[in-house]
């Protein structure tokens, strides 16, 4: 007798459908693929996000505020979203994602918390913030946003997000990422998708974070 109070998991549903001959998969997709989709937190492995240095301007106690862009701020509006996982593919609800960046002129706010935030990943491990494309800091080669990501049971990660549209990369970040000696992996250079809104162009970037387990 089936306990109807316990809902079927996606995995159980797929297995039952397969057993009953009621499962139709797209060409090239195996039952294993479907099971992996159904339960991404089991057995999946993800390479950890490459490290990058913390830099001199990290500041504790940043506000829990995802809207960093204020009316009148100069610079291209930037929307960054992503999910936080561990290397087993488990979404890390509650992970803290601290970010800090320069303004459009390449200047960091040391006296306050402009363009600084401490975000908390939601139930799906998702975080996001609305900002502006950082300017070029004079002592650095590339535009970048700093990250410090922490979650219980995982190693804290400091890293930096870079933008494929940065002129430094000359349109080929995979080839040219080492023009900035602090970039150790081209994986940190992310594609920028431009969208048009009523307010104008917005740069959209996805930056998934994968933490190593302790």
């Amino acid at each position: 007798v089936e306990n109807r109070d316990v809902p079927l998991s996606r995995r159980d549903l797929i297995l039952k459908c397969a057993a009953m001959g009621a499962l139709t998969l797209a060409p090239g997709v195996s039952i294993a693929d479907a099971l992996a989709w159904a339960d991404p937190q089991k057995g999946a492995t993800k390479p950890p996000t490459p490290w990058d240095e913390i830099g001199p301007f990290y500041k504790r106690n940043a506000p829990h505020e995802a809207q960093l862009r204020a009316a009148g701020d100069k610079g291209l509006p930037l929307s960054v979203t992503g999910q936080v996982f561990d290397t087993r593919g488990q979404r890390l609800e509650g992970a803290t994602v601290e970010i800090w960046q320069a303004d459009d002129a390449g200047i960091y706010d040391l006296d306050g918390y402009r363009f600084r935030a401490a975000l908390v990943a939601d139930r799906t491990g998702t975080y996001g913030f609305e900002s502006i494309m950082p300017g070029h800091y004079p002592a650095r080669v590339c535009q970048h946003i700093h990250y410090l990501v922490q979650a219980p049971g995982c190693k804290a990660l400091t890293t930096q997000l870079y933008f494929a549209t940065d002129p430094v990369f000359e349109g080929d970040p995979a080839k040219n990422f080492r023009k900035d000696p602090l970039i150790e992996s081209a994986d940190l250079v992310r594609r920028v998708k431009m969208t048009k809104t009523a307010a104008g162009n917005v740069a959209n970037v996805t930056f998934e974070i994968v933490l190593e387990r302790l």
Partner: protein
Amino acid sequence: MSTRALSTIAGLVLAAGCATTPPEAKLPAEIGIIHTATPAGAIVMATTKPVAVTAGQHKLTVISLPDGTERRAIDLGDRSGDALTIAPDGSSFAIGDHSGGITVWNTETGQVRFDFKLRRYPGLLVFSSDGTRLATAAQGDLVQVLDAMTGKLVATLGAPVGGTSALAFSRDDALIAAGDGDGAIRVYDAHTGTLISENRDLLMVPLAVAFTADGASVIAGSGDKVLTFIDARTGKSTRRWERTSQPVAAIEVSPDGKSVATVFMKAENMLEPDHSLIRELSSGAVQLDWLPRAMPIGGKWMSDGRLLVVLPGADGLHLWRLR
């Protein structure tokens, strides 16, 4: 490659091992130019011996001070000197390259004492006061304290979030102060690596730490733009000087322990020079406020009480005396 003689300027007499300044001479003063065949991007000076090492264009040059005579040149091949340091007594010097390779040389003989490998480029490379130990850390990684003669691991310090950004030994080499990426100042037993105290009063990454001469206090500077005095044993803040216009990037206490030199970092462009201050430690009174015309590439408070700073120039390294 050869290093040319140090010229004298403004009537200052450069005697062996000591740039003597007439009592009436006004400081700061430019006291000489070191002409080097290879442009130098950095210079480190010993405090008790008249010796320095310059680095630039994949070459290290050991020179005598103040005459600038080249004593030894070392070709680094394709290695880049990301970090350069010399023991206070001048007995050893070391570089760390961008791949994480550390090499320590005997200054007198030019022989390599040992090579050591970090997992990435170094964030720290600091000799103990007596030159027998070398503290180093890859960027973002934990600090390892090595025997400076053999490379044997002596102790490891904690592994803070963001790594350690500033480090100093006490003058008796009993303690190590670490400024960590999480904003904390931690003091360790230098022999065992045991944590002794922790201070979390700074909000930003510490950029410089130094012990007072008696080792009782740690002075820390950061993007918080204040100089904080911390009891080394308890970790409690005991004093904070008034807010400055820029972050403190370097701190050096005078040999007599009565003054402290601080170098500020121009936060909006750290490639440009900012002010250096000398203040009386007991009162905080400013004794000197100096804005160099170029970003200093080295500086040291010598054991005889002189404070020397080196500025780059098209015609060589310009040696300034601030005290």
